[in-house]
Each structure stands twice: as C-alpha cells, then as structure tokens.
C-alpha cells in the first residue's frame, strides 16, 4: 500500500460509516413507512450532514464515488489505494 493511514483516517471513515448506517436504516424504514414525517425530517437532516462529512473525507483521502459523483485532484485519484478491503 502506497499511503500510510493515520488514526485520523479511521476516525473520519467511522464517522461517515455511522452517518450512512443511520441513513440506510431510515431509507429502509421509510420504504415501508412513507408517511412518517419525523423520520423523513431526520433523513433529510442526516443526508445533509453526510454530504458535509463525505466532502471533507474526500478532500483529504480522495474520491469515494466514481462517474462524476466525486471530484478528483491531479493525477486521477480513483485508481489509488487503499481499496476498502485493504484497510
């Protein structure tokens, strides 16, 4: 692996995983409870938080998504390690 990953990487990654876990849960819940306004508000609020958290993570550690959903610095960062199973 080319890059040494510090404690900060794992902390930021975990923060993102925690936010996204809540969003996955709310998504599945809303799929069967589409009229729950409180859950929907929580979903939109967390979606905004996730976006900020993901942007910060990507600025530091490179793109999380491809096909134009994330930005890249030069040279093309998508192909850089680590891949998820390598951390």
């Amino acid at each position, binding site marked *: 692996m080319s890059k040494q990953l510090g404690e900060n990487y794992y902390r930021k990654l975990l923060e993102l995983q925690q936010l996204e876990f809540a969003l996955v849960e709310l998504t599945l819940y809303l799929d069967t409870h589409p009229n729950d306004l409180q859950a929907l508000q929580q979903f939109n609020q967390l979606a905004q938080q996730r976006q900020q958290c993901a942007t910060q993570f990507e600025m530091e550690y*490179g793109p999380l998504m491809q096909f134009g959903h994330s930005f890249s610095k030069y040279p093309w960062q998508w192909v850089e390690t680590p891949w*998820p199973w390598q951390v």
Partner: protein
Amino acid sequence: MWIYQKKLQYPVRVSKCDPRVARYLVEQYGGADGELSAALRYLNQRYSIPDKVIGLLTDIGTEEFAHLEMIATMIYKLTKDATPRQLEEAGLGPNYVIHDNGLFYNNSSGVPWTAAYIQAKGDPLADLYEDIAAEEKARATYQWIIDMTDDVDLQDSLKFLREREIVHAMRFKEAVEMIKADRDTKKVF
C-alpha cells in the same frame, strides 16, 4: 444504474490469519442463503413486484452487495497470509489448486453458486415470503459462524451482518402487510 462507494458499509477487522473460518464464511459469499443470492434475488424480483415495494427491494438488494464486499474482505484478510499447507489443513486445498488466493462464488463445501438457489414466482406474496425465509436462514448461518470462531473482531462484523438480516426480514414482513392491505382495499370497491 449503480454507483460504487470506495468504503465498506461497516468496518471489518480480523485478529489473526484463520483459513478455517474463511472456509465457513464462503457459505455467505456463494452459498444458497449467501449475500450474492440475496442481492440477485431481490434485484431480479423488482420487475414484477407491485410499485409500492419496488423501492424496498431495490434498497435491500443494493445493501446486500455491500454485505458481499464485507464477506469478501473477511475471507481476503483471513487467508492473505496463509501458506498452501495452512490452506490445505483448513480444507481449502482444492480451492488453492483451482483459484490460488482468488475468491470464487461457491459454498463452504466448494459447490459453485447456481441460479437454482433463488426464485422468482411473479406472485408478490410468494416472492416476499421467500425473501423473509432467505433472511432468516442467513441470520441462522451467521449465528453458526459466530459460534465457530473466538476472534472477537471478526465476531463484531458478523454480528452487524446478523442484525441486518433481522431488519431486512422485518421490512419484508411489513411489505407483505402493505400488499395484503392493498389487495383487501381493491376487494371492497
């Protein structure tokens, strides 16, 4: 279309090289009630299910691919430092001869994945009941694998996956009720 995220859904850590447990985990990779079966089952059933539950099948099917990547990560981490001799002792000798360290979609006994593991009846209730059963079977398998290891790091990730099966089964049960309610409404009018 699908967009990949370059991160795991939940952290996967292992505390030792352990090809014996990796072999059991392959059941959840390419076995009948594994994550590949789950993802392909739900994403294929979407096309004939009532509109009300297409979203649920899409989202759970997508989450299953995240679980598939977690299982692959576990197998990768548990076997990457193993010698051919260690693999052989774990019963993975034939796997090594065919695939080296490559992962493959087969079950823990080495039987290749087959589409016969999954069903699409077209009947929404029949399909959803199959999905509920699949989640319950996967939950049970995760429990048996947790019982087969003393690696607490690995157990943590496996417990996450076990809990996801419970949530998925619950959501599918709600989808059954939604379809029943819809059907009953139609009978009245």
